[in-house]
């Protein structure tokens, strides 16, 4: 035991020694870098918080862009901080502000976080910063309008779209062909096709994840003729008869047509592979899973917007993250950060980012880039993911988003699970949401 103790103490010494040595190491380069940079006009360095999941080697791609950017602007140093997911980045920003720490100049957070970020006084409007770029109007016009929907408030622009996606339906073209079916163009044909393609115990006609349900539900509501959110930032339409219709349609897919698992489907993670494996004929999911599905599927993959209630209508909703510039950072850093955001959304980079990650390129002109054209020739479905944007409504974003979304989830899932009727659930959701928004009017 004595020996172990001594070993342990030694280890501790070594380790704590290493800790201090590390601390020294980290400060050293900063100190020596400063005098070297003085020669340049105005050296600026800024931090950017960026979420990375395992979707793609995002960190590697971003670091490549940063290298290119710094080559063009030698006086600017970009220091990326890669965190886990969107939630982590937002929490990191929050805790930084509340803890009185130095915020990063820029962060990529969900487009829908807009109101919380404005109200909490974390972000600055980009209008005056944007006026420094040469082709401001052309630039903004080139961004897909659905992606800009959640950037505007109070007549100002607060964020720039970057890592964006949308809800789509993937369908197994081979199965459809074999059954003599064509792609559905209405709720009725969707339900009928799903029913026909279901083989009990072997294959579902459709999977529609609803563990975190609002996003994949929205195309249904839009398809029914009433989005759950409108132009107002304090009004929701949960108990609208059309929205209730949408809830009923979702439930009917399992109750009436037996074409999808009953109740809430906690299958966000498993759905794409289920689809690629052929154990489900259609899935509703993010455009972000396209790359993975294509890689794994040995059949012709179809991508389309979600059919609406009326024949020939379709719907979708965008998702994903935008660049935000944070308050309290020096003007020079903010300007440098905006330059970076502008730089990586140049058509060339937007196209590159899209082909490497599977996200939708945020700019129309990116689709004219040779690299993108070559990619589309190989993966024509990538053009379909872009084309669903035509049918995209506004993603749920309003004041008090966290609470309202929780309320909606709670009652939508109660309806899905059959613990409440759709009417009662949506009425209660509306009541609670209205109450929670009272303070914001």
């Amino acid at each position, binding site marked *: 035991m004595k020996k172990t103790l001594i070993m342990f103490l030694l280890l501790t010494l070594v380790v704590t020694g290493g800790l201090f040595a590390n601390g020294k190491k980290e400060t050293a380069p900063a100190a020596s870098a400063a005098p070297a940079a003085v020669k340049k006009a105005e050296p600026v360095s800024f931090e950017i918080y960026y979420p990375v999941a395992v979707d793609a080697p995002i960190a590697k791609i971003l670091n490549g862009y940063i290298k290119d950017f710094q080559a063009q602007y030698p006086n600017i140093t970009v220091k990326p901080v890669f965190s886990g997911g969107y*939630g982590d980045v*937002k*929490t990191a920003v*929050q805790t930084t502000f509340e803890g009185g720490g130095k915020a990063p100049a820029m962060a990529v957070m969900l487009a829908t976080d807009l*109101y*919380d970020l404005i*109200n*909490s*006084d974390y972000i600055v409007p980009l209008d005056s910063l944007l006026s420094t770029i040469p082709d401001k109007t052309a630039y903004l016009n080139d961004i897909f309008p659905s992606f800009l929907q959640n950037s505007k408030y109070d007549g100002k622009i607060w964020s720039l779209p970057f890592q964006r996606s949308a809800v789509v339906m993937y369908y197994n073209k081979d199965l459809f062909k074999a059954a003599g079916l064509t792609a559905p163009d209405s709720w009725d044909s969707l339900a009928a096709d799903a029913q026909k393609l279901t083989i009990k115990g072997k294959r579902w006609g459709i999977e529609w994840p*609803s*563990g*975190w349900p609002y996003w994949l539900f929205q195309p249904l509501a839009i398809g029914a003729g009433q989005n759950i959110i409108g132009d107002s930032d304090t009004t929701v339409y949960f108990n609208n008869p059309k929205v209730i219709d949408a809830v009923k349609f979702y439930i009917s897919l399992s109750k009436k047509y037996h074409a999808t*698992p*009953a*109740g*809430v*489907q*906690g*299958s966000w*993670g*498993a759905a794409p592979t*289920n689809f690629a494996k052929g*154990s489900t004929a259609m899935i509703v999911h993010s455009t972000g899973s396209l790359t993975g599905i294509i890689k794994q599927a040995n059949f012709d993959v179809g991508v389309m917007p979600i059919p609406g209630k009326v024949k020939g209508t379709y719907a979708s909703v965008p998702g994903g993250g935008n660049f935000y510039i944070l308050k309290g950072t020096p003007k020079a850093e903010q300007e440098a950060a905006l330059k970076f955001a502008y730089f990586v959304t140049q058509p060339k980079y937007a196209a590159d980012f899209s082909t490497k990650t599977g996200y939708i390129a945020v700019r129309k002109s990116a689709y004219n880039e040779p690299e993108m054209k070559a990619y589309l020739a190989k993966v024509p479905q990538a053009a379909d993911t872009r084309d669903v944007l035509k049918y995209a409504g506004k993603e749920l974003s309003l*004041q*008090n988003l*966290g*609470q309202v979304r*929780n309320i909606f*989830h*709670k*009652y939508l*899932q*109660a309806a*899905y*699970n059959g*613990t409440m009727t759709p009417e009662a659930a949506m009425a209660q959701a509306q009541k609670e949401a209205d109450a929670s928004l009272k*303070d*914001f009017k």
Partner: protein
Amino acid sequence: MKQKKYLPYVLILPTFIFVTVFTVWPTFLSLYKSFFKQRLNIARFREPVFYGIKNYTQLFQNPEFINVLKNTLIYVLGTVPLTVLAAFIFAQMLNNKFKGIGYFRLAFFHPSIIPMVSAATIWMFFLTPDYGLFNSALTFLGYSGPQNWTANPNLALFAVMIIAFWKNAGYYMIFYLAGLQNLPTNIYEAARLDGAGYLRTTFAITLPLLKRSTLFISTIAFISAFQTIDHIFVLTKGGPSGRSTVLLYYLWQTRFENLNIGKASTITVILIVTLLAFTLSNIMLSEKKEPNNE
């Protein structure tokens, strides 16, 4: 030791300082803030406004919060006693000498080495509807109920409880095992000569002798049951319909999703009071029975 009156205080000082800075002070801060309305996402409430005890009354009138308390109670009372009991049984089973016993101990202990986030990820996979092995195994045993564990309103809380049970039972087992191996063997010899059966020996000798182990284990089990929500984060996000939301997760939601600082502070205070009640009673019970302590 009388000439150094200050010595005990000096010895306690480091602990005292850390406890003050990182526990007592922030607790008082939370208590103070619980009397204010402060919501980061409403411009006019960004600075705290005095609110009396309204945060408390509103919470206790909110059926959602009552539901959270209920879930918490089910979670804690459902996992702690069962896990401790299983730990004791496992320890009894593995307190034998046969070849390869180490591998068996490893089999039960290994989940405690796995961080809860990873354990939850493994279980998310394990619980997958349709082809997850958990369902396959249950189907094999004749189960035909719903398979969607994390999304079924009646199963979600149960699913996260199973994970906690799986993860912790082997951990607590080690403490029991150590306790068992420290027991004097001559008592058992005597009991056997008296003709006492296995069950009688367990209840009359083993359990009383392991009282201290049980106190230790149940204390850490209670604390960790209240403190660990990583699996809820990964698996259910408190859903569906809030059916697996427990107190700490609710605190997290209120604080970081709803940005409601006043209410979050209030929940912190309630959480602390609940924990104080649980652990204090646990400790007081044990102290009472050991009069030679002071």
